[in-house]
């Protein structure tokens, strides 16, 4: 169980059958371990009742339900030409302050909005609303990450045609969000200089899932004796070639570079044919 929060089930999720094949087999005495060889294909794609005392082979991704919803969202975002950025990091790495500054800078010419996830309080939504952009707070209660259906619910009454750019500020957590696709175009991982140079090595799964990395709070690198080059090198070690932007949302360092990156990614999406 997630040790960050011990989060539980949310009611009302529909079941999803996804894509799978049934193959009936004659394994009466199934041993106590896994056999990849059970996966051989048979010709009888019988979707009827499985016989008792049989092994039912199923090919199904466990998070298929979320993946399907994320794909649906991605399709809607593509149709309406909305560029979507999922921001992931530890709690306190500076996601909200960077977003507040970014949204304020972009608001004059980019139609930007944000949804922000937290277990409790509307504080982040209040801070982001200062940019003048539409903002929704997702209160996750005990959940330690956002899932696609929570994003879909949060934006259900927004007209996507009125937006160019949507930020999704995930719940601060370096573990749980990695496996949950939200339909985003870009997953951005923040690491603050205060978190230590080895953070990407400690959390390789999230690092590997990121498209871009932001090193935040570089104004604090010197007082906390963070070697920013080493931190950037560790990001590149886990995720070779990842684009890294060094920022201080407080002082303003790197913010223009970060905004240029967003603009160029948005242009690239706008130029790409809609599938």
């Amino acid at each position, binding site marked *: 169980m997630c040790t960050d929060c011990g989060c539980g089930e949310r009611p009302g999720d529909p079941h999803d059958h996804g894509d799978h094949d049934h193959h009936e087999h004659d394994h009466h005495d199934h041993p106590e*371990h896994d056999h990849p060889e*059970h996966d051989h294909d048979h010709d009888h794609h019988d979707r009827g009742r499985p016989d*008792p005392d049989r092994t039912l082979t199923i090919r199904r991704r466990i998070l298929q339900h979320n993946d399907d919803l994320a794909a649906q969202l991605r399709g809607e975002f593509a149709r309406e030409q909305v560029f979507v950025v999922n921001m992931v990091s530890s709690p306190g790495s500076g996601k909200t302050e960077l977003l507040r500054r970014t949204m304020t800078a972009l608001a004059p010419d980019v139609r930007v909005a944000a949804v922000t996830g937290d277990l409790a309080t509307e504080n982040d939504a209040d801070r982001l609303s200062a940019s003048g952009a539409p903002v929704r707070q997702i209160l996750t209660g005990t959940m330690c990450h956002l899932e696609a259906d929570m994003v879909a619910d949060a934006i259900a009454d927004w007209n996507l045609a009125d937006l160019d750019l949507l930020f999704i500020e995930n719940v601060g957590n370096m*573990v*749980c969000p990695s*496996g949950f696709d939200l339909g985003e175009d870009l997953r951005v991982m923040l690491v603050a200089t205060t978190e230590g140079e080895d953070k990407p*090595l400690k959390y390789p799964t*999230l690092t590997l899932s990121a498209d871009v990395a932001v090193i935040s709070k570089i104004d604090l690198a010197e007082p906390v004796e963070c070697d920013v080059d080493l931190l950037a090198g560790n990001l590149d070690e886990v995720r070779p070639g990842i684009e890294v932007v060094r920022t201080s949302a407080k002082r303003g360092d790197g913010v223009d570079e970060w905004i240029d990156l967003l603009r160029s990614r948005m242009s690239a999406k706008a130029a790409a044919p809609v599938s």
Partner: protein
Amino acid sequence: MHELTVAIQIRRALEAELESDAEQLVADAVRIQVGALSGVVPEALQFAWPHAIADSPVLGSARLDIDRIDVQLHCRPCDQVSVLSEVVSMRCPICRSPDVEVIAGDELDISGVDLRDRARGPT
């Protein structure tokens, strides 16, 4: 990651799958594949499993068999496949090239379930 949610998703998927047979069948074991890149900790999932299935008519007594899958990288420049014992870098361990493809290790899949007639006791 979020192992209780994962356990609940497994339960939901299988209960939907077996819905029409729930009165006749009971599951003895559920088999899943968990890759080292999936973000799921097998021990934590094993811990969450009994809580996720406790009141399930079909799965309530099912064992969870977890097949752990190591990361395998195929390096394009040197055309070698390497198995990573731990995930610290996505470079080829032989030539250090970052030009690799993950050919195994990102699995988070249900692979099968062992069923028996409800009228019969556990085997």
